[in-house]
């Protein structure tokens, strides 16, 4: 880590996921701020400028993750967004496999499916937050 500590916003309604993200990202030297839903994230963003956001796609409101990602991409400068999804292929909604072709439309920089492996997350963050 060089220079100022970077801040990552983690938004998910699952307490354990927020905990896991905090544990591993803090161990990797980032400053982590968490929010448990779209509303809480909006309030947090009023006086926080994160360097990157990790957002769960489906929280209480089905499209909560999308609208939040949209807001973050409209900020100046746009905030890199990693979208996490637990949407299973069993339900016929498999976003992860369509990642390459559709991530542009979804306005996110990376799509990962739950559970997220630590090295996978570090790789994406390193790509999106170059030193």
């Amino acid at each position: 880590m060089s220079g100022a500590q970077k801040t990552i916003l983690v938004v998910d309604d699952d307490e354990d996921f927020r905990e896991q993200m905090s544990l591993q990202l803090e161990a990797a030297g980032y400053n982590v701020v968490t929010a448990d839903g779209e509303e809480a994230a909006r309030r947090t963003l009023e006086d926080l400028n994160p360097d990157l956001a990790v957002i769960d796609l489906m929280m209480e409101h089905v499209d909560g993750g999308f609208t939040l990602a949209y807001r973050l991409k409209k900020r100046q400068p746009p905030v890199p967004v990693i979208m996490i999804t637990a949407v299973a292929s069993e339900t016929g909604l498999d976003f992860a496999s369509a990642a390459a072709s559709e991530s542009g439309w979804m306005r996110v920089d990376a799509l990962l499916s739950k559970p997220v492996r630590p090295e996978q997350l570090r790789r994406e963050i390193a790509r999106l937050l170059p030193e």
Partner: protein
Amino acid sequence: METLRVLMVEDEAAMRAAVSRALSRYTLRLPDIEGEYGFAIEEAGSAEEGLARIEASPPDIVLLDHKLPGMSGVELLGILAEKQPPVSFLTVMMTAYATLENAVVATKRGAYDFLAKPFTPDELRSVVSKTTRHLLLTRETRRLAQEKRQVRFQLLSVIVHELKAPLAAIEGYLYLLQDPGTGSDPAVYKKAVDRSLVRIGGMRKLITDLLDLTRIESGQKRRELVPLELADVARAAIESVQPEAERRGIAVTLHAPEPVPMVADRAEMEILFNNLLTNAVKYNRDGGTVTVRLTGGERVRIEVADTGIGMTPEETARLFHEFVRIKNEKTRNIPGSGLGLSVVRKLAHLNGGEVTVESSPGVGSTFTVEIAAHSPEAQETEPE
């Protein structure tokens, strides 16, 4: 009014005209079936023409003459019986040679009914009415089966999601333990193990609830109706929530001034109390109370009152549905399967009764189950 299309395959023009007349202004109302039905008559002079019309646009009912110039009516029936996918209309055979033999052959080839020539307009209408009724009921049954498949798929999707979420959480903690960056930290280790155990407990509860629910719904489980004292069941259930209640300083008391004898299935009563009591403790405030009141008689009344977070009227209205968990700031960190209360409701119905709730936010909730002291034998199926 809904119009059903009747195709008449008949070589005699006079006969076609007579049937048309008898049905064209005939309207039909059927018991148990909504709406009024009228008939639009289409005519074909031969089996070949009839087949062409059926293939172009299938009618609802076919009135088919037995004896036709080219292909016979029974031969046409044979062709229709082979069709894939199966035809969705019903066929009534009309014949002047009303022999048992003819009837058997026609029925074997899929004719729904039989009309012996000559027939009066009333006889014709009576057969058409019966056929229409059968047709509409068959279609309704098919529609319900389709709907049921869809509901089942939706339910399955929710179950899959509810089981995958804790699995993902546990897997996530295991990755943290495996990763050199975090795995060597004792604080991470403790957190990972503790939380994984909590999530496994939640999964176990979900699976138990699902089993209870499907068992009740399927009627597979044989109910053993035995004489029992409800207060004993209540005491045992209170015993099992006691450790958690004590940890949070919640006092659980039982008021059963008189014996409450019942003839019921013991396991059902245990599930009922366990669900109500677990909720009353789970959604209570620390230091609160849970009061269980039993009243005997022909109708047995079970009241479980808590001093917990309570609910708004909008929230209570949705409460007894499957997988409805009232999500708000207060319930966010309380684990639950979203099935417990729908199990309670199903059990109440099964025992000839109902469950109701009175609640006010921040004050508490009182669940009241009123059931028959002598549980009805017959398995009532849910009208859902």
